[in-house]
C-alpha cells in the first residue's frame, strides 16, 4: 500500500474485501512476496497482443505455417514460443472476404491470454457478452467495424475447453512489408474480430 498524502481516502467496501482476502491468503502462505506485482507486470507488459500479432504475421508470410495454425492452433502457436495458462486449446479461425469471425465468452471472460494478454474491459462487460451473440452485425457496426451485408458473421463462444483467435485478412498493399512490419499492423481488436485491418 502506498502513502497518499496526509488524508488517504477511506477504503471502499470492495477495497476492504480485497484487503481482507490479501491478508488472509498471505497469512496462509499462498501469496509469496512480490507475487502479485510480478504476475501483474508480466501480464501488462510481457504477455500481450504482440504475441498474437507475431502469430498472425507469420501466417501471412508462410503458407505452411498458416496451414498448421488452422489445423492445430495450440501446436502452431507453441512453435513461436507462446502457450501456457488459458491457451492450451487454441483454435484459430480465418477471416475471408465472405466470412468474418468474432470471439466472445458468454459465461465469464474466457480469453486467449498467452496471445492477447489481459482482456479489454468491454470484453468482460455484460452488453458485449450478450449482444455479440444476439445481434453481432449491429454491435460490430457500433464498435466501428461495419460489414458488408452479404458477409457471413461467425460468433465463437470461448470456453474453458477452447479459446479462439481470429486470423484477420492481410491488408492490401502490404506485399513488400517484412514479417516484423506486418506484425506491427495487427491490432488486438482485429484478433478478437471487432475490427478489420
Amino acid at each position, binding site marked *: 500500500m502506498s502513502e497518499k498524502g496526509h488524508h488517504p481516502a477511506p477504503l471502499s467496501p470492495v477495497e476492504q474485501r480485497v484487503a481482507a482476502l490479501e491478508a488472509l491468503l498471505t497469512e496462509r502462505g499462498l501469496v509469496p512476496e512480490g507475487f502479485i506485482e510480478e504476475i501483474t507486470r508480466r501480464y501488462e507488459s510481457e504477455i*500481450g497482443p504482440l504475441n498474437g500479432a507475431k502469430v498472425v504475421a507469420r501466417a501471412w508470410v508462410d503458407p505452411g505455417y498458416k496451414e498448421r495454425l488452422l489445423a492445430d492452433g495450440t501446436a502452431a502457436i507453441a512453435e513461436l514460443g507462446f502457450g501456457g495458462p488459458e491457451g492450451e486449446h487454441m483454435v484459430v479461425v480465418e477471416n475471408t472476404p465472405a466470412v468474418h469471425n468474432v470471439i466472445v465468452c458468454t459465461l465469464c471472460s474466457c480469453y486467449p491470454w498467452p496471445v492477447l494478454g489481459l482482456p479489454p474491459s468491454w470484453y468482460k462487460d*455484460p452488453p458485449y457478452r450478450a449482444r455479440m451473440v444476439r445481434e453481432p452485425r449491429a454491435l460490430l457496426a457500433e464498435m466501428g467495424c461495419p460489414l458488408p451485408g452479404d458477409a457471413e458473421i461467425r460468433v465463437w463462444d470461448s470456453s*474453458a475447453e477452447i479459446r479462439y483467435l481470429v486470423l484477420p485478412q492481410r491488408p492490401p498493399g502490404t506485399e513488400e512489408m517484412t514479417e516484423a512490419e506486418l506484425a506491427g499492423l495487427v491490432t488486438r481488436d482485429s484478433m478478437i474480430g471487432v475490427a478489420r485491418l
Partner: protein
Amino acid sequence: MTVPLSLSDLDLPRRNGELAFDAPWQSTVFGLAAAVVDNAFGGDREPFRQQLIKAIAAEPARPYWESWTAALEAVVETLPERPAP
C-alpha cells in the same frame, strides 16, 4: 511460462488497448486469484472459473472485478482452514 521479448516490442501491447486495471485493488485481486490457482490448486483454474461464472450469473450487471472478488471469496471458503505445512 517463458515469453521471448525484445526491448523494442515493449510498447506494443498497450498500443491498441486500454489499461486492464482501473484501480490498484483490481490488479491485487487479479494477482490473488492467480496465487490461489497456482499455490492452492496446483495450477487448476477450473474451481475459480466455476465460481466466476456463478458470480457473474448472480449479478450480471455487477462490475467485472467485483464479480472476480466475489468469486475469489467463494473459492477461499472452500480452502481447508489450515494449510499443510
